[in-house]
């Protein structure tokens, strides 16, 4: 045995991944540009960061069709434009709210092919929540000129534009 004693074995959970640190440029109300996924190019309003590190955003739904949704910070450009979201209550939203309900594996005769993709019907709660959150945000958006059409538009690069040289 070495004189200092044997060091205790390292805890196997030493390298637990921590939730991503939120960029300084992203604060509640920041307009974000989504870069990937179904809503790529859309400009959305950031609400809060969830425990998993994902960002909670909303279109608002009436403006650009983006519902309350989780986004990864890595697939987002933060603009310097901010919307006042202090009126919106987002305390109840967490990762569990957005977790996909586990569907039981249907072992039918056809195997993989006949998998009935059960279209998830939008629950009334979800719609109500969306409206509640968006109501306050829409009020704030209406106060700023051009904010509504801005959030409705999609971001794209035209010739000669260089993202690294652009100010967002």
């Amino acid at each position: 045995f070495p004189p200092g004693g044997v060091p205790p074995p390292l805890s196997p959970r030493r390298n637990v991944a921590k939730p991503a640190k939120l960029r300084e440029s992203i604060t509640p109300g920041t307009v974000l540009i989504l870069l990937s996924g179904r809503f790529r190019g859309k400009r959305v309003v950031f609400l809060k960061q969830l425990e998993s590190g994902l960002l909670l955003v909303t279109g608002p739904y009436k403006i650009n069709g983006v519902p309350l949704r989780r986004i990864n910070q890595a697939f987002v450009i933060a603009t310097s434009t901010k919307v006042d979201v202090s009126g919106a209550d987002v305390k109840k939203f967490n990762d569990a709210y957005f977790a996909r309900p586990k569907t039981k594996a249907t072992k039918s005769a056809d195997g993989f092919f006949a998998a009935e993709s059960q279209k998830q019907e939008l629950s009334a709660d979800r719609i109500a929540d969306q409206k509640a959150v968006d109501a306050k945000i829409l009020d704030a958006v209406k106060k700023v000129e051009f904010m509504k059409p801005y959030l409705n538009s999609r971001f794209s690069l035209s010739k000669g534009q260089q993202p690294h040289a652009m100010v967002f």
Partner: protein
Amino acid sequence: TSCSRPQTELLFHFLNMADENRRLVEAGRVCLVNFGPLVGKLVVIVNVVDGKRVLVDGPSTVNGVPRQIMPLARLSLTIIKIDIEPGSRLPTLMKAYKAADVQKQWAESSWAKGIAKKAAKTKLSDFDRFKVMVARKTRARVVNTHMKKMLKK
């Protein structure tokens, strides 16, 4: 060749002489630095060293550019000139600089305005760019509808 090289050079020489607004490399000529760490600054030529270099001063109290030798390749001559003897020191230089009101002359020039416009454009945020786009489109609509009416007549 129809025009030999010395002849074409003479031709350009005479064409340049016709322009009243010739910009000479001389003591008092205000220039814009176009290369190097001092890029974008206005400086005054204080003296000429040789065919390729000049002694230049900010003036140092105006924009912090100390008196130094600079190659002419780094300078773009402006129309502005102040009245100084070659080799004038800072107090005399400042006096002439203020008398000519170089800052005001520069700011009013379309050159300076163009630079400012370009700088403002790069600083536009995403929202600003959107607003500019909307403005362009509304203006274009007004112009085009008017054009169509005029063409119909």
